[in-house]
């Protein structure tokens, strides 16, 4: 499958550029969560074409080289066809037919086109449509249309060369001179229309967008810090991350012209509170503008009322925004849906971390009310059990989310013996985020909101939360934190990667940190590539279970940050080494998740079957690893650099890191030999780094 994307518009086709979607697979042209093309098939003289090669030129552009044929033997290699496709608000495709023969060629070139206008939710869940379709062969264009009451969507297909247009496609009867060529430009526009025929939202055609997109990508790459690494694969991984992050930028239609990270292709090309925040945190040292937009947009959309259908509360940060038919008719609650328990405290964490890096105190002042409302939500709306802990239970029983933490699959929160707890559930990492939000909120209140009393109150609450948490969640016999408290306030005792997030948040008592680290790096959680979501030995452990045994690169990047926070530099470097090793096997693009099999068992990381790729917080993982390996930490107006690299990494130079200091360089060196072999650091299971020098920039 070949994918190109731009924000929330993307095209998924086969390797000859054709689309033949079934009702349940995510191929086609999608925009705003709606499939605008489900059929797009090119034939020459009635024959399908065969791919010679496919070039991914840019994230928004692909070129297909094709020849006519029957599929087994080329019947006419004297002809070739090039399709050059770029995505924008719809897509633009240039078809070129080349005649390599000495004789002129008379040909019939045909494009079959159709659309089912499926909502992405319908594709995911195989649901039936309720509206009516029309196909209009007009002069110079084919219009595919779907209407349901006042809901109106159109796909408009036009060509620069004259075509015979019927209701299911365009036919070109052409003659190509010897050694000549014929070209047409096809524009496919995805239109969201109002009843008066005007566009629902402003947009530009792809042909106008393309030059802008090329410039924009170049500027994006030029603005990011430059990486110089002795370990050769790192340059490719780094560039891949930056380009994919550019591709996943999403400009919400109703929230300014700036971009924030969408979650991932193909199911999640939209704004997610949690994903956008965590990706913004990962990329802060590289592309701080993403964090700024995330804060603004999520702040604007912050919940203001109680709405059971959307699981909305005052102060709550949204979970997911969708623009498709089912959201429009309130058959799904995503306009937006608020059912998550972590994005709200994480919103405060991001606001504080953003200011620490950028010094943009104006934004902190501008979003004071939103940050206060988020902090208030923690105690006023999220303490469902009245026990002083953040917990979740959906109020929308039909279409709301059961698990409102990042591990949101049905079986992710379990006891060691495999039983599932009832609701509400208070997962451990939520308490860490709440703690961190209060500590950071206190800094903001004291330093920017001129409210030391509020700061004191938050610090006191945080200290109290930490004290209770270290007692109530701790399993003294097993020496780790329970994954959650159940509806009765009892411990849900599975061993999970969640304990790593606790280190990141700083809620773990120093005296307990070593035991936590021993578990993270011990044989039950550590696979050799990374920390598993659930430990081997838990009843529900499954190395290819979505949240019950796979390794998630983003999860590991935050765990590594947590390890740094508690002084475990070597372990943080070891995690970075494992995940970066895995990235080499995925051509530099880390998937959402991969199998939790022991490294020695498979020798290569096994991709999770339906993992999203590219996925924003996996894309952000190498960036956060760079931060943790170099030990980058803003203190006042300075950037502390305290590197600790894995063995075999050689040296790293990260140049022109943007921040409140202007631009600054950071260097790290591993005195050992550089290992560029695909299996990078054999010693991952043993030891993986050496101490390095410290410097204050």
């Amino acid at each position, binding site marked *: 499958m070949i994918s190109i994307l731009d924000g929330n518009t993307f095209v998924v086709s086969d390797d000859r550029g054709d689309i033949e979607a079934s009702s349940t697979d995510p191929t086609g042209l999608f925009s705003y969560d709606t499939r605008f093309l489900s059929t797009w098939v090119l034939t020459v003289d009635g024959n399908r074409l065969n791919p010679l090669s496919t070039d991914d030129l840019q994230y928004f552009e692909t070129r297909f080289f094709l020849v006519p044929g029957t599929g087994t033997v080329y019947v006419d290699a004297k002809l070739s066809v090039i399709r050059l496709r770029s995505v924008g608000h719809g897509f633009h495709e240039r078809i070129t037919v080349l005649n390599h023969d000495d004789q002129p060629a008379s040909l019939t070139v045909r494009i079959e086109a159709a659309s089912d206008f499926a909502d992405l939710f319908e594709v995911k869940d195989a649901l039936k449509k309720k509206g009516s379709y029309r196909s209009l062969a007009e002069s110079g264009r084919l219009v595919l249309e779907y209407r*349901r009451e006042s809901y109106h969507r159109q796909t408009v297909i036009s060509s620069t060369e004259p075509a015979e247009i019927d209701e299911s496609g365009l036919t070109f009867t052409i003659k190509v001179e010897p050694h000549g060529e014929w070209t047409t430009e096809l524009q496919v526009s995805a239109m969201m229309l109002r009843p008066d025929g005007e566009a629902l939202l402003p947009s530009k055609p792809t042909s106008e967008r393309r030059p802008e997109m090329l410039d924009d990508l170049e500027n994006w790459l030029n603005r990011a810090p430059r990486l110089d690494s002795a370990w050769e694969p790192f340059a490719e991984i780094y560039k891949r991350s930056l380009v994919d992050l550019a591709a996943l930028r999403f400009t919400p239609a109703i*929230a300014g012209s700036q971009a924030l990270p969408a979650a991932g292709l193909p199911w999640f090309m939209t704004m997610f509170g949690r994903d956008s925040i965590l990706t913004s945190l990962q990329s802060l040292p590289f592309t701080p503008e993403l964090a700024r937009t995330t804060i603004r947009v999520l702040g604007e959309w912050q919940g203001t009322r109680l709405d059971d259908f959307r699981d909305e509360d005052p102060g709550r940060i949204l979970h997911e925004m969708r623009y498709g038919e089912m959201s*429009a008719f309130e058959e799904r609650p995503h306009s937006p849906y608020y059912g998550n328990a972590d994005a709200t405290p994480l919103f405060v964490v991001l606001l504080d971390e953003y200011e620490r890096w950028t010094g943009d105190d104006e934004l902190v002042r501008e979003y004071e009310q939103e940050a206060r409302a988020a902090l208030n939500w923690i105690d006023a709306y999220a303490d469902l059990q009245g026990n002083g802990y953040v917990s979740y239970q959906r109020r929308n029983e039909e279409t709301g989310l059961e698990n409102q933490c990042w591990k949101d699959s049905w079986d992710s929160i379990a006891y060691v013996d495999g039983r599932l707890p009832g609701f509400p559930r208070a997962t451990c990492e939520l308490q860490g985020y709440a703690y961190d939000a209060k500590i950071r909120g206190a800094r903001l209140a004291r330093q920017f909101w001129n409210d030391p009393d509020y700061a004191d109150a938050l610090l006191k609450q945080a200290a109290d939360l930490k004290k209770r948490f270290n007692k109530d969640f701790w399993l003294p016999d097993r020496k780790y934190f329970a994954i959650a408290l159940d509806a009765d306030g009892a411990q849900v005792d599975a061993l999970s990667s969640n304990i790593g997030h606790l280190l990141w948040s700083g809620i773990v008592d120093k005296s307990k940190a070593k035991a936590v680290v021993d578990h993270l790096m011990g044989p039950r959680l550590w696979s050799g590539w990374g920390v598993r979501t659930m430990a081997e030995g838990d009843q529900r452990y499954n190395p290819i279970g979505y949240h019950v045994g796979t390794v998630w690169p983003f999860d590991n990047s935050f765990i590594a940050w947590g390890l740094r926070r508690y002084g475990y530099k070597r372990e943080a470097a070891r995690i970075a080494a494992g995940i970066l090793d895995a990235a080499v096997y995925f051509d530099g693009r880390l998937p959402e998740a991969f199998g939790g099999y022991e490294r020695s068992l498979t020798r290569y990381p096994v991709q999770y079957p339906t993992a999203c790729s590219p996925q924003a917080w996996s894309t952000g993982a190498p960036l956060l690893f760079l931060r943790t390996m170099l030990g980058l930490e803003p203190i006042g107006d300075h950037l502390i650099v305290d590197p600790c690299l894995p063995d075999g990494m050689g040296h790293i130079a990260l140049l022109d890191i943007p921040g409140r200091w202007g631009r600054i360089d950071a260097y790290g060196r591993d005195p050992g030999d550089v290992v560029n072999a695909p299996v990078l650091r054999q010693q991952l299971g043993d030891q993986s780094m050496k101490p390095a020098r410290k410097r204050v920039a």
Partner: protein
Amino acid sequence: MASHTDAFFQELGSRGHEPALRSRTATIRFEIADGADVECHSVAIDKGDIAVTSPGDPAGADCTVRTGHQLFERIASGDANAMAAMLRGELIADGDPELLITARKLLATSAASSVPSPASSVKSAPTKGGQS
């Protein structure tokens, strides 16, 4: 009994300052059609200070929100969602679409006041003006 629409604009006119919109300066116009009759209100927001004029002047509006009366009644009472209505073409936002979020905040804050809250209001944390 007064309609939800009337109650909303009356409440909005007497609200004075809305802290949630303190960084916003814009004019949003509402045109609410009931058959051939169109009821118009212009809501001017000046750094959170709100002034409502009815019918107001269509010129100078940064965004004009057009709906039918029944839909607006449901939106004002909190039964319908403005964003979903916009997506299905039942509500039209002309001009700067970003201001639909602002309109949503005005509406939601109004609707929220009629819903029981499990705890104190969002502004229960001490505030001291914010500018240090």
